[in-house]
């Protein structure tokens, strides 16, 4: 999938990805010559189809997580099957361990146990890599968009 600014005859460059949380996706592309921006909007089925390929529009921003797609997409997984993974508290990113705000912890608790450990580690790594001391719901929203974590 590529976008061409027909007027300038230039390939448009990926600019930004947004995941509103309703299963849809918005990806903006900018013409490097005239600056015109167009947005690709996908419906939930189209978003799902792209996700099911294990690829991310705008590029992969995370190292692959083991069984990432299975854990992120299966809804009938055993709650405790990755219990050991959930103990991996702070992630492996650089920087000091971030703390979790109460609201962020509550939000994390609503993530199914099947995938919670992986999600927690991803957010912790995101915060550590950027020197973010406290993970809040706002940080989680920003990370979700930047990293393309649909449904997490």
């Amino acid at each position, binding site marked *: 999938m590529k976008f061409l600014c027909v007027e300038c005859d230039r390939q448009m460059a990926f600019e930004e990805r947004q995941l509103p949380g309703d299963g849809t996706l918005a990806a903006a592309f900018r013409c490097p010559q005239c600056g015109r921006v167009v947005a690709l909007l996908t419906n939930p089925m189209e978003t799902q189809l792209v996700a099911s390929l*294990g690829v991310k529009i705008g590029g992969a921003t995370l190292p692959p997580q083991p069984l990432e797609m299975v854990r992120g997409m299966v809804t009938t997984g055993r709650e405790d099957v990755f219990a050991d993974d959930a103990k991996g508290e702070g992630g492996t990113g650089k920087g000091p361990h971030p703390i979790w705000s109460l609201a962020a912890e509550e939000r994390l608790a609503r993530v199914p146990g099947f995938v919670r450990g992986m999600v927690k580690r991803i957010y912790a790594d995101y915060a550590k890599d950027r020197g973010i001391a406290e993970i809040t719901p706002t940080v989680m929203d920003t990370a979700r968009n930047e990293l393309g974590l649909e449904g997490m």
Partner: protein
Amino acid sequence: MPLNIRTYHDLTEPDRSGLAGQIGAQRRRVAERLATVARVGAVMSGKGGVGKSFVTAHLARALARAGRAVGVLDADLNGPTAPQLLRLPVAGCTSHDGAIEPAVSPEGVRCFSMALLLEDGRPLAFRGPEAESFVWRGTLEAAALREFLADVAWGRLDLLLVDLPPGMQRFAELAELLPEPPPVIAVTIPTQQSEDAVRRALHAARDRGAPCLGVIENMAGGPFAGDAADALAGEFGIPVLARVPFHPTDDVWDALVPKVESSL
């Protein structure tokens, strides 16, 4: 006047999404993980209920008894039975160095299966829009197979057996994911109906360039009439590797080991 629009392949500027590159990276991850696996073999039939999983599990156990390092990848995502057949202990999954550790049977067979992940009695279900789920479900299942290959710490194996579900779709996905199509062992029961289904499967495998190692006739000598194994062996020029009775002893499986190994 039509617009003068260049084609997809004409556009060669750097593309941050790099979707083709992401797919390529997935394939490399599979190849890297399987670099320590000497052989991958697919157990298939094309027909349901002929005992593919039963044969796979017992063959794997016999190989382990013979001192081989063997793994079973249960590719029947919707009806996984390998853990029960291999008598795997119920346990959680642990990850180490970016990979999930496989479960290990009492005989030492390493196994990974959707059954290890799902709640008891629940079907495999995916998050996503229910409408038009047929569009994406198959792709998700193929991605699950890819992750089972790439993200499980299979370690050094002499043979990784892939237990395929009925039909040929999963075989096509497996052949696509591996560097080359895997050799196949076909399982049939004696009946004409099974013969017809297995014939189609063997043709499909051969059309993909997969070597056919032989055919195993399961449930032989019982109430099912027919000579499916002999007919298929003659037609495809492959050996009948075993005729497995209804209540096979370990001897039957142990005798199969050298035949499978010599055909690989």
